[in-house]
């Protein structure tokens, strides 16, 4: 942790919920990116977390933009700054709704065009800002205000969609592993072109667990193999430390599910399907890393 700079670009006056992991992630993202950075933020929790006019908790310029438009706005920003000879980092910091659902078209367009920027999706697996409605990133079985009986379909595999654009760098991260996130942001920003980081960001009010459990829930997501930490540099996959162990011997899925109110009513059949999905994902990535297709 000693490598992480002491300078803060997210001040202690955010409007985040207690135990919010996405603001924790943003703190490390900005430490990695440094002051020559512009953040482009679509409608998401960060629209609120940054604070209301005329105050702000942000130490770098933040350009707020409409829900579906973050990647496109960043395209324009990135091109403008580079024509002005600037090396400024342009980073989209968007929630899962603004990424996997309403914003996926502009995300796809910006990646296909080779835009030089970093797109970070912090994923709390629902529309958290509006009070936890389901998104395409909500996992199977999870209760939200629009899936009161539990979500009947699986989480959209955003990473494989992004991977199909062959970006020079993409990675997953989790709020419970801030040093891993910090390093990934650093690496991403050292590469030219469209970069992508997908952060799992547990949400106490949305996932219905006590605020002090935020780090623990994140670690369990990784230890159970539900969330796998990896990097893909120019297509080459590397599984990162914590997930290497987890993939060999994952902790029981129940350890992750048990502490979250959103999974309270998951029945054995759904749990079995969830387990199968975790296993399939582990196997797919293991095979790919081993060079077996």
């Amino acid at each position, binding site marked *: 942790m000693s490598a992480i700079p002491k300078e803060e670009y997210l001040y202690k006056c955010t409007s985040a919920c207690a135990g919010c992991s996405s603001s924790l992630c943003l703190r490390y993202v900005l430490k990695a990116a440094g002051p020559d950075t512009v953040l482009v933020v679509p409608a998401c929790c960060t629209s609120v977390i940054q604070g209301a006019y005329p105050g702000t908790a942000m130490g770098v310029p933040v350009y707020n933009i409409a829900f579906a438009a973050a990647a496109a706005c960043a395209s324009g920003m990135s091109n403008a700054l580079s024509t002005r000879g600037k090396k400024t980092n342009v980073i989209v910091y968007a929630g899962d709704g603004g990424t996997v659902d309403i914003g996926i078209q*502009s995300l796809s367009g910006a990646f296909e065009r080779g835009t030089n920027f970093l797109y970070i999706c912090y994923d709390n697996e629902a529309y958290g800002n509006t009070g936890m409605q389901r998104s395409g990133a909500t996992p199977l079985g999870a209760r939200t205000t629009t899936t009161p009986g539990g979500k009947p379909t699986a989480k959209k595999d955003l990473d494989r969609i992004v991977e199909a654009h062959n970006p020079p760098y993409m990675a997953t991260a989790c709020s419970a592993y801030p040093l891993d996130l910090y390093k990934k942001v650093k690496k991403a920003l050292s590469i030219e072109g469209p970069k992508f980081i997908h952060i799992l960001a547990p949400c106490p009010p949305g996932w219905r667990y006590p605020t002090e459990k935020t780090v623990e829930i994140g670690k369990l997501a990784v230890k159970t193999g539900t969330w796998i930490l990896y990097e893909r540099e120019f297509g080459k996959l590397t599984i990162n430390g914590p997930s290497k162990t987890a993939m060999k011997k994952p902790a029981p899925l129940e350890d992750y599910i048990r502490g979250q109110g959103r999974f309270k009513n998951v029945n054995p059949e759904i749990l079995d399907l969830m387990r199968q999905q975790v296993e399939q994902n582990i196997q797919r990535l293991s095979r790919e890393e081993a060079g077996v297709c």
Partner: protein
Amino acid sequence: MLTIATGNKAVAAAVKAAKPGVVAAYPITPQTEIVEQIAEYVTDGDLESRYIPVESEHSAMAACIGASAGGVRTFTATSSHGLLYMHEMVHWAAGARLPVVMANVNRALGPGWNTWAEHTDAFSQRDTGWLQVFVATVQEAYDTTLMAFKIAEDERVLLPVMVNLDGFSLSHITQALETVDIGDFLPPYHLPHAVDTENPCVYGPMTFSNDYFKFRWDIERSMRDAKGVIADVEREFAERFGRSYGPTEDYRCEDADVVVVAMGTLGKEAEVAVDLLRDEGIKAGSMRLRWFRPFPDLDLAGREVVVIDRDYSFGFGGVVAHAIRSKTGIEPYSVIAGLGGQEVTYNDIAGFVRDRRPGEEMWFGVSEHV
């Protein structure tokens, strides 16, 4: 240089002269020729600019917003469904006080598919905070696009400008065009609130009613100031390049008993109708509305007015007729004509004047007074 060009190519030529740092656009008939020509300028090195071939009009305007805020002059072009698809971002560009210039080639809206001229697309964006101007000749399309950058970027305005030209009937017709060496007519792009990492600011965060209200009033204040800025820019343009237009183009209005008010190419064709009517002894004049936002001050007192609307607000009436009624107190004869590219000739327009029934509305070709 004297040459000939289509309305679309004239717009593209003006954009080349204005040297935007970023052009982000998506093709749509009948606007496509503009973005094709700009893409060619950029590829051939005739225009040093980033052309961002976005995947939708929503993204076109979002990219223009990012680029304009990022500190460079920005242009886009669209039409009809494209304009409606970007509607959310059209509001955003104005609210963010960004001097984006957009050419909108006026076209009808589906269903059914119809690519011909109509003004409903532009009027659907009437309340977004954009300045809106409608042109009628190839030369005017060129001149107005150039002036649009200067007006938008003036610190008294800092609002986006939409230059409207009729689909096909202006976008695709060929007329003479004199392109100019603009010299220092357009100063270097300077946005006082451009993104600056040396002075980090937050743009468009959550804003509560009292502050939000002030920002809205500030848009309106700038819209009102824009009238003077438009006049200043037109005066300077006339001094430098010898051509002037004004908020309206008035033709034989001084002693007219009846004035035809129309926009775009129909407003120009109305002048031919006026000549016909004058030959018949009817003291007619025509007033072509160029600027629609900010809405100009009109002098129509004591005249009868025939308004031609190439648009309609369902359940209410013609948008221009409504504007004339509310701004002048005159009850016009409201003619709805030219929707979906309906052919309207100067003979037809003369007929509207001869058969005028002030206070009534007539749908041309439907033969029904309402």
